[in-house]
């Protein structure tokens, strides 16, 4: 009846240092967001507007995709549609081959993580260098990001020192500022030598044919301004109608993600450099790759379509009490936290990690802070229903189904329900009186020590059934009331 849990969750729960790192880092982001939101007297209005804009855009997505494409093409850029990871990799490799490219610099993009782009490029002898500090560290360590916005959240400075010594051959350096300088120097060489710069896009602006890229380090600016070729990769859901809509989205994004009013650099890039206008630097070639990779399937599901509204701020991760315990690597895919929990089953199919939609107490903290008002608990409940239906068809949840059928059967029959209560009292063990004197059950006798009861008792004490139920006590009370005092 209980799901089989991935080992990673248990490992993370057992690692006190990691637990502390995750909780503290997310806690900081929670406070920062709160401070950053406070001065916005129209914060709730902004969320409503952002939700409405995303809804409208997705409901008219073909129009906006074509509009973006027309503008980009008119300005000398090119739009490439990609069905999946292979289409993206094939395209980039063909561009690289044509130009004899050897080095690619990449700025942070969850979309490229989604499709394992680096691995595919490296397989073809193209050096693909992550340039966001946290992502670069992980690339050196051959690890996946831990958090949408803070990828190296789980690494200490000593971990970083080890990685640098091992992979860069530098002398061991544990001072964070100096580690950052090492990164600056190494990556600067790559920026200046790179043939192609690859970026993501936080937003694709339809009326401008532009990509909007939000960052703090400057690596996206460098990746998109120094190399002669810029390839931006974005999921098709990144479209927004107008440049003016950035007023709403930019006001929400950085505040929700890191507690900044605006991140350090917000780039609005529309095509290759304007040679006619005399622009001296910037790429000669600009490509926007629009990726499906299953998004059209999510789009078709009206009930859960809002899952595509996500602007990748990471606020839901920071506020999720489950994420704050199990960390990013406990999730099966690159997208973790509440957003990961709802999109992973939709992209991969619920048969892959059917436990994932259930790994939530449905507390709703995520929905409360989502800048685009995705009702994550609602989607989780839909997914749970789908998992149960699928398991029902396969016949893999016979016991659980029986248990809930029995539950429903009893709950429709008040007298049977009362009898069931009496039966439970007959078998319940005596509480082992702990020092708290609360009189709760600490251990279960062998026969009862199974399933949900055992799971409960593994973590906390169990309340004994009350000697008399409420309805028994109520009847006494009303009986006494009718008989009058003493």
């Amino acid at each position, binding site marked *: 009846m209980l799901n089989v*849990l991935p080992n990673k*969750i*248990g490992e993370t*729960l057992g690692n006190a240092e990691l637990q502390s790192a995750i*909780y503290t880092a997310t806690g900081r982001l929670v406070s920062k967001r709160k401070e950053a939101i406070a001065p916005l007297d129209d914060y709730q209005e902004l969320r409503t507007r952002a939700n409405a804009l995303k809804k409208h855009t997705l409901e008219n997505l073909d129009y906006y995709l074509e509009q973006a494409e027309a503008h980009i093409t008119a300005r000398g850029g090119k739009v490439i549609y990609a069905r999946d990871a292979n289409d993206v990799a094939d395209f980039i490799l063909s561009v690289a081959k044509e130009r004899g490219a050897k080095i690619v610099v990449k700025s942070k993009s969850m979309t490229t993580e989604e499709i394992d782009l680096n691995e595919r490029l490296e397989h073809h002898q193209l050096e693909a260098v992550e340039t966001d500090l946290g992502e670069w560290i992980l690339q050196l360590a051959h690890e996946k990001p831990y958090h949408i916005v803070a990828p190296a959240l789980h690494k200490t400075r000593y971990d970083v020192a080890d990685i640098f010594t091992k992979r860069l051959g530098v002398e061991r350096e544990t001072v964070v500022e100096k580690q950052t300088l090492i990164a600056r120097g190494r990556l600067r060489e790559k920026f200046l030598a790179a043939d192609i710069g690859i970026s993501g896009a936080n937003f694709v602006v339809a009326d401008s044919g532009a990509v909007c890229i939000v960052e703090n380090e400057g690596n996206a600016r460098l990746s998109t301004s120094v190399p002669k070729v810029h390839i931006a990769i974005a999921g098709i859901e990144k479209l927004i109608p107008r440049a003016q809509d950035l007023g709403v989205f930019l006001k929400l994004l950085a505040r929700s993600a890191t507690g900044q009013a605006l991140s350090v650099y917000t780039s609005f890039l529309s095509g290759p450099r304007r040679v006619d206008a005399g622009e001296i630097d910037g790429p000669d070639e600009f490509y926007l790759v629009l990726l499906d990779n299953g998004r059209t399937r999510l789009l078709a599901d009206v009930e859960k379509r809002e899952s595509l509204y996500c602007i990748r701020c990471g606020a839901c991760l920071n506020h999720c*009490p*489950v994420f*704050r*315990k*199990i960390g990013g690597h406990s999730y099966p895919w690159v997208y973790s936290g509440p957003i990961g929990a709802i999109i992973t089953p939709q992209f991969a199919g619920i048969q892959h990690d059917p*436990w994932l939609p*259930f*790994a*939530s*107490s*449905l*507390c*709703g*903290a995520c*929905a*409360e802070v989502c800048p685009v008002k995705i009702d994550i608990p609602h989607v989780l*409940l839909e997914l*749970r*229903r*789908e*998992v*149960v239906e699928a398991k029902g068809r396969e016949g893999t949840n016979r016991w*659980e189904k029986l248990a*809930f059928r029995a*539950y*429903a059967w009893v*709950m*429709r029959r*008040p007298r049977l*329900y009362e009898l069931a*209560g009496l039966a*439970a009292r007959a078998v319940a063990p005596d509480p082992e009186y*702990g*020092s*708290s004197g*609360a009189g*709760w059950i*600490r251990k279960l006798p062998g026969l009862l020590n199974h399933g*949900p009861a055992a*799971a*409960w008792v*593994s*973590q*906390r*004490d169990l*309340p004994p*059934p*009350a000697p*008399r*139920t*409420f*309805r*028994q*006590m*109520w009847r006494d009370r009303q009986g006494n009331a009718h008989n009058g005092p003493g």
Partner: protein
Amino acid sequence: MSLRVSLFVTCIVDQLFPKVGLAMADVLERTGCKVDFPEGQTCCGQPAFNSGYRDEARSVACHFLDVFQDCEYIVVPSGSCTSMVSHHIPEIFEPGDPRQKQAQTLAPRIYEFSRFLTEVLNVDDVGARFEHRVTYHDSCHALRELKIKDAPRRLLAKVRGLDLHEMDAAEECCGFGGTFSVKFAGVSGGMARTKIESIERTGADTVVSIDSSCLMQLQGALSRAGSPIRTMHLAEVLASS
């Protein structure tokens, strides 16, 4: 005014924490309500609904609707059960199903206990005395689905001798989440322990909430840790004198 109030005590209170139900009845009568207890009541269907078993949840919901359909005011010592009935039961029926209409008509008549006292009876002082240092846990469904945050605090503020200290993690989930507490017991236990650390920092000897499921989770963890801190339902605090 003498309102007719029907109690929906919830299955967990009925079976495990009956004193909470009695305390709630006492307080309601003290404020002048006529209280009744529809005997046919059992459960709201939430366990099945949250576990993905819609058909089973629907069948339990139908029974609930039948038992309570003629009640003017239904008062509940639980945020999660109240929101199950008011927010989710209407959704599990198809539009056009007369049951959906029935559920929608009933939804405005069901109240979480603290909301009923403060917003329907317009009462915040029920004459209670409870001389303890107390901290308050915001249960998730109450806070986020029903938007209940001030009502319990207003009521606690009027309890004589009660010293309320807010914990820094007041709004963080206790980790119960229904079957989540057993399906993901390790995570659930971890969440409870984090919550308890926050409670301990307040120096309170009592944690109060409006949801018995949260209190069960917290008391279970407190008891396991050998802590003297006790949990109490708001109703029990308000019934104290």
